[in-house]
């Protein structure tokens, strides 16, 4: 039993290490273009809403807390409480994605979606298009992970509802927790890197 638990945890972390590299390519592209085009990064970042990004940061870290409690209740064999914490985590995740959806829609209205329809005035327009491309790629890949997370949360909550977990058997909840916390960590980096590039100077 101890060895099984150990290998489940280890396997999950190998997957997450791979996820670090998966997101890492985008962070690499972000870093290089930020060094090349600092002015465009500063100006592009001003287009994002710090208030909405900040609220989403609080919501997502809050969902990590409820997820941690779900795992804790599963460890203690409290299936009902586990289910409730998982559902609360799911609701907070939905709040995050809905707010993100409003942000995307606003960008759509402003014609700030990179591509043929992209409109931006000023000398840095081309480079800002690169910034916004990375913004959509990074937050989009993150949002995709959240959507997958919703499926996992709903499935695990269903298991808890049927009373499947016990102090000896709760790996599902713990692994779902690791996945959810990882998604939280990605956002912890995305928020300052995208929303808070250069808020001191009011450029553009």
């Amino acid at each position, binding site marked *: 039993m*101890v060895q099984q*638990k*150990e290998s489940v*945890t*280890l396997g999950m*972390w*190998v997957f*997450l*290490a*791979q996820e*670090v*590299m998966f997101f*890492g*390519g985008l*962070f*690499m592209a972000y*870093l*290089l273009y930020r*060094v*090349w085009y600092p002015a465009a990064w500063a100006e592009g970042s001003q287009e994002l809403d*710090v208030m909405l990004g*900040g609220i989403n*940061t*609080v919501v997502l*870290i*809050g969902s*990590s*807390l409820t*997820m*941690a*409690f779900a795992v*804790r209740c599963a*460890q*203690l064999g409290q299936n009902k409480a586990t289910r409730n914490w998982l559902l609360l985590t799911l609701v907070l995740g939905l709040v995050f994605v809905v707010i993100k959806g409003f942000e995307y829609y606003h960008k759509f209205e402003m014609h700030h979606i990179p591509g043929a329809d992209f409109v931006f005035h000023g000398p840095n327009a081309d480079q800002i298009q690169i910034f916004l491309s990375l913004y959509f790629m990074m937050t989009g890949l993150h949002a995709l992970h959240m959507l997958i997370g919703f499926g996992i949360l709903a499935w695990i909550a269903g298991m808890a509802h049927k009373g499947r977990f016990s*102090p000896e058997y709760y790996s599902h909840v*713990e692994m779902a*927790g*690791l996945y959810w*916390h*990882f998604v*939280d*960590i990605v956002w*912890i*980096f995305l*928020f*300052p*890197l995208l929303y*808070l590039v*250069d*808020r*001191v*100077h009011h450029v553009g």
Partner: protein
Amino acid sequence: MSGHVSPKSMYFTIFGALMFFTALTVGVAFVDLGHLNFPVALAIAITKATLVILFFMHVIHSSRLTKLIVATGFFFLLILFGLTMTDYLTRGIQPNGQKGSMITQH
């Protein structure tokens, strides 16, 4: 071992710390620190991520092998950043030590 049950108060403490650092990173973004704004924002983010990994993800109670895998993921990320940047950031430098035309523009 993964069977370790942490007290509720620990989770609330970590959550409080994460909220504090979130407020700090927003606040400090509006203060002019010159070139230090980016490193400070990164340092805060790394601190927050470390708290999540150690306490929410229970790595602090995990086996040494698990800790090694966790560290490996980030180690290879640093290799990716380090080697790529040493390439791109030195491309305009000529053998005589002078900075040549930067080939970074378009």
